[in-house]
């Protein structure tokens, strides 16, 4: 976590960027929020519809479903949670978290997948 901050020595106080959520800015974003909301609704319907479509195997269906869900989650995170324009520091926290969650998923899977057999 040090890289982010080492340059930002307070002795050479780095001027903060103007807050991205300035008053005028915000009014501009409203339309975007509504659109994303609409998009999420549409993709919810798509998720449901896709689940009744046979992609050849159940695994494929799960993969498609998760892909769509990840996309939706990405929208929520990027737009509603302002991650698309967030500070460096928050990204760093989240990168590590994501990595460790994936480790948790992946290794429990691997351990299940690689047992001792005769």
């Amino acid at each position, binding site marked *: 976590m040090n890289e982010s901050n080492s340059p930002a020595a307070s002795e050479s106080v780095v001027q903060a960027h103007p807050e991205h959520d300035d008053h005028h800015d915000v009014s501009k974003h409203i339309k975007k929020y509504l659109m994303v909301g609409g998009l999420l609704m549409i993709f919810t319907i798509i998720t449901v519809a896709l689940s009744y479509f046979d992609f050849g195997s159940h695994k494929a269906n799960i993969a498609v479903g998760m892909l769509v869900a990840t996309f939706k989650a990405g929208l929520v995170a990027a737009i509603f949670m302002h991650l698309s324009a967030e500070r460096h520091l928050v990204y760093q926290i989240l990168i590590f978290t994501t990595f460790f969650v994936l480790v948790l998923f992946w290794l429990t899977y691997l351990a299940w997948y690689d*047992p*001792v*057999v*005769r």
Partner: protein
Amino acid sequence: MISAPLALINEFLGQPPNASEHGYQIDHIIEFSHWFMGALFVGWSAFFVYVLIRFRKSRNPVADHEGVKNGVSTHLEFAVVLIEAVLLIGFAIPLWGKFVNEFPDTKDAILVHAIGQQFGWNFHLPGPDGQFGRRELALVSNTNPIGLDPNSPEGHDDLVVANELHVPVDRPVIIDISSKDVIHNFAVPSMRAAQDAIPGQIIPMWFKPIKTGSYEIVCGQLCGLGHYSMKGMLVVDTQEEYQEWLKERIELGGGPVQPPTEERVADRPEGEPPPGEIQGTVLPPGAPKVADPTGAGTPVPQNQPPP
């Protein structure tokens, strides 16, 4: 094919002699890592003691702002990495591969199923036909601890023995380990072999005994109040003794020698100590401290708190 018995440190630290074919390799890893640790320990200790004396305040009243300027520690750390890598890649990983992947041919091996339960081991042997009978949950009872179906074509001649397993010397033994209730660990220290017995899973393990004798089977995983006394015996016989034992068992008609009695803490009335568990396996004063270590064939001390 025992290589030179190199286990100096291990012996010095009291490790009992190895009795299996692969065991010396495990001992070597323990040995080598202890040499490695010892070198680091002695080296740093010498440095440490010297420094504490040489740089005490009365001897060195003014500290040096800089201290050590050379890069010795980098070399040292590099050496540590190197040695660990050698131990890992050269010894540990291949040996594990051998232990869990390269199972011996089942035709030469003795096949056994070991089923753990609170607090004892059930051994299921295939009998003369060499086939294991069906086991079913619904059939489990006090007289049939492993739920063996005696009517199945493979099962009628199977042997079930409690706590004492005989195997012949110099033949690989493959044991499929599982458990009925909680996690146990099937450990035979003298064979340098151990494997968890996990309910819902069957995990195979193998070793090849190279010395006759009887060896304790330890339960290496906390499994309840009788954990400390969950003892089995692995008796390594000569080929003839083994055949004789088998014959004897077959004449007895299989089935458990003594059905392990079961006693669960949870079921006893509130506050009531379990019957006799205090006197339990703790031997009375004056009794020989060691269960007869040569006692091949003598009844094995029973698992659970005895009456």
